[in-house]
């Protein structure tokens, strides 16, 4: 993949001043993505970053590449047009929990279903940042915001479950406080053929500070998260002493050395469905790649069909078409 091994993070940094709030988690995600892009090695002019609207969606301005800061919620649809027109491009979509799961939920679901080969980074800060703090579809019940001064009461979406529901061929979760993990996940997503959705737990220091602390804070996160690796057992805890097993269709925590411990296999859809039900309350929340399987790539079939028709009927010529079928001459 590495066409250009000399690329560095700097090659993906644009000349625009980054304008997020000081301390915002977005900075770390941007940096990790730029580093990952450099390692992946697609030259910047073959990269196209498409976003919607939100703090997170300012992202394309900061990446030296082609890019579009489109409209609220529609990035997956815009990016589908980009990718279908030019499947050679490495297309990245950047979205937020509002952009991607509130107004844009349907487009997100449909791109996952179609499985175009693009990568989607969903910045989940459980809040609408840019509009100054209203609750979002991922906000926990009881979240007090400007629009819910007495607490929200709807149940949040789990992006993981949402992705499974839409048939995502790749879903991963990572955290803004672990640059290495982020980079690793971004690179796995890029390597995967098909639509890759990556949820990043991102801290909005202004409107929802600390909401992910249990899972992102270095001091406690290992107790509340389980890091998934293909072929490895589901072990977690600061001392890596706990493991997960399934009993009567419920997850149980058992000692790490137990035989019943589940081994991770992201290609097993049933296992992935089960893992997506872990939400941090009923067991540790999984980080890393929950689901990854091979499925037909939309744009490949799209172009194969065109090629098959050309092969069958010859490249179309308008003059021939005009003369085809029922015509008559007047003289």
């Amino acid at each position, binding site marked *: 993949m590495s066409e250009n091994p000399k690329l560095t993070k700097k090659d993906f940094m644009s000349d*625009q001043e980054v304008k997020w709030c000081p301390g915002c988690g977005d900075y770390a995600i941007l940096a990790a993505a730029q580093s990952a892009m450099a390692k992946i090695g697609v*030259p*910047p*002019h*073959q990269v*196209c970053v*498409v976003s919607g*609207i939100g703090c997170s969606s300012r992202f*394309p*301005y900061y*990446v*030296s*590449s*082609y*890019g*579009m*800061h*489109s*409209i609220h919620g*529609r990035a*997956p*649809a*815009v*990016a*589908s*047009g*980009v*990718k*279908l*027109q*030019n499947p*050679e*491009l490495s297309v990245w979509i950047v979205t937020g929990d509002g952009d991607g799961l509130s107004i844009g939920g*349907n*487009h997100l679901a*449909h791109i996952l279903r179609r499985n175009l080969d693009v990568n989607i980074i969903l910045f989940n800060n459980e809040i609408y940042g840019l509009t100054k703090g209203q609750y979002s579809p991922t906000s926990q019940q009881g979240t007090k915001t400007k629009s819910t001064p007495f607490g929200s009461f709807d149940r949040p979406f789990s992006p993981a479950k949402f992705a499974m529901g839409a048939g995502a061929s790749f879903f991963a979760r990572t955290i803004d406080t672990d640059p290495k993990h982020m980079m690793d996940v971004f690179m796995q997503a890029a390597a995967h053929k098909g639509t890759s959705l990556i949820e990043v737990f991102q801290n909005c220091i202004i409107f929802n500070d600390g909401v992910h602390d249990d899972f992102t804070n270095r001091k406690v996160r290992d107790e509340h998260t389980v890091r998934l690796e293909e072929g490895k057992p589901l072990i977690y805890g600061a001392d890596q002493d706990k493991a997960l097993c399934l009993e009567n269709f419920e997850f149980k925590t058992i000692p790490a050395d137990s035989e019943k411990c589940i081994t991770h296999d992201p290609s097993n859809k049933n296992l992935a469905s089960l893992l997506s039900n872990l939400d941090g309350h009923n067991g540790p929340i999984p980080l890393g790649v929950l689901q990854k399987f091979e499925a037909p790539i939309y744009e490949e079939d*799209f172009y194969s*069909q*065109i090629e*098959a*028709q*050309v092969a*069958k*009927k*010859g*490249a*179309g*010529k*308008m*003059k021939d*078409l*005009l*003369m085809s*079928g*029922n*015509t*008559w*001459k*007047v*003289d």
Partner: protein
Amino acid sequence: MKDLDQVVIRFSGDSGDGMQLTGTQFSNTSAQMGNDLATFPDFPAEIRAPQGTVAGVSGFQIHFGAVEISTPGDEPDVLVAMNPAALKANITDVKKGGTIIINEDAFNDLGYKKAGYAEEPITKLEKEYRVINAKITSQTKEALAEVELDSKSKARCKNFYALGMTYFMFSRDLKPTLEWIQIKFGHNKILSEANAMALKAGYHFADTIEASGESYKINPATIEKGIYRQISGNTALAWGFMYAAENSGLDLFLGSYPITPASDILHELAAHKNFNIKTFQAEDEIAAMSSAVGAAYAGALALTTSSGPGIALKSEALNLAMMLELPLVVVDVQRGGPSTGLPTKTEQSDLNMALYGRNGESPIIVLAAKSPSDCFKMAFEASRLAIEHMTPVMLLTDGYIANGSTPWRLPDLDKDFPQIKVNKAEPQENFLPYKRNPENLVRQWAIPGTENLMHRVGGLEKENDTGNVSYDPANHELMVTLREEKINKVALNIPDQKVTGNPNAKRCLVSWGGTYGSVSKAVENLNKDGIEMAHIHIKYLNPLPKNLESLLRGFEEITVCELNRGQLAGYLNSKFSLNVKKYNKVQGKPFKEREIYQLMGDL
């Protein structure tokens, strides 16, 4: 055998009776016999409403003649009614004294009941119309007695029997249809034979009973020399875009979501994948529009097609395309509005939305096609202007011209169309994505994947030249004005407005879009009858042709006729401070020639 100048015939029956096919055969045969013609299908809103009910009636009208034909005709001279519901649905349209062919077999108590007739209607009708009774179903079955088909399948050939009757009445050549049957059903000998036999049986039956009193001859029309084909507006539109892609060397991308009456454009383009056409059925209109924006950014000739409610949904993403200054075409096949309205009916009530239906100052090019075959040309024009001016274009058609068809003299693609100038940026140092050609204010198209043209675009206001986000007040005013001026300058790249009819008349009729046929015909007849009348038919709606204002100021009286409540009239008033008269009709139906004639003729 008497000669006739022109005839209007309508085939009408149950959705399952094959009336669309029958009508198409009649019109193909007539075209090949050298008549000029125009056709219009009339589908029920329900897919297949209960058999025998008025809701389930499907019709097809053909206007053919030895003279120039501009519309599918005001009132049928002949109605073929395969059942009572078909009679009920259509009788008010038929010309007084006209001929009605009924399929007696279906005109029984059950049939009357389903159609909602309290009593048998024929006796009354016979006083005002010439009614020809024919046992079409049973006669067909009888004619096919020897054929190895079950009775139901035999009955299904009855439309060819009816067709045969009309072929005799109007001296149509059986050959084209017999050949077509051969090709269509060739693989099934029995069916092929059965249909051919039914056609001939109907023909002979009419001969025997001297169905039409006598039969008529309709001589070939004097038509411009050339090779012709029948084409519907939606097909012509699809082909026009395909040709624009071929001409410009760009890939054609369509992002669309099905909606009546626009879906057929998607179907037509999807069927021609060997032309390297990319059709994407999106999850909704917003995604369709957005995918077109993405494809345009990535270098395609991008389209999206829809009708009223879908176009409304595209507003926000279309505005983004305007802001980004990307070329793409939005087709609005207008239907009866507002809201879901009358989906299968025609109307011209989306002009205001096309011009004004976006937040902020958002000027785009707006065009309208005037006839089924003109759709080819206007699709090309829409593409050409979008590409040459780096802007979205809204192309308006309507349900009437989209589904209607006319013979189309095939253009010479090499000579009749200009070369589209594609405006792609060459790789360069310090590329400025929003730097403009000083003459037409157009920016260059920088295609992702090209080295040295990297840039980011977005919906926030951007600095001129650099395209960087800018909140600067003066820059905003500059950009708003530049975008407006850019569209105004398109007037230098479109034809001047022509005046037809009598250009020296004091009175002028103004029309736009799919009403061209009836209005131009009415104007022709008015002038023939000594009532002087000019006609201005506007195809370029924004910007308006640069000579239009002075043309209009030359008339003492201007009447704008349109299938809405006065949208073009209001627009012309607002642009030129005129005080035009309005003539409007909002019935989900096209103008009749007669309506326009009477309007202007009754002084």
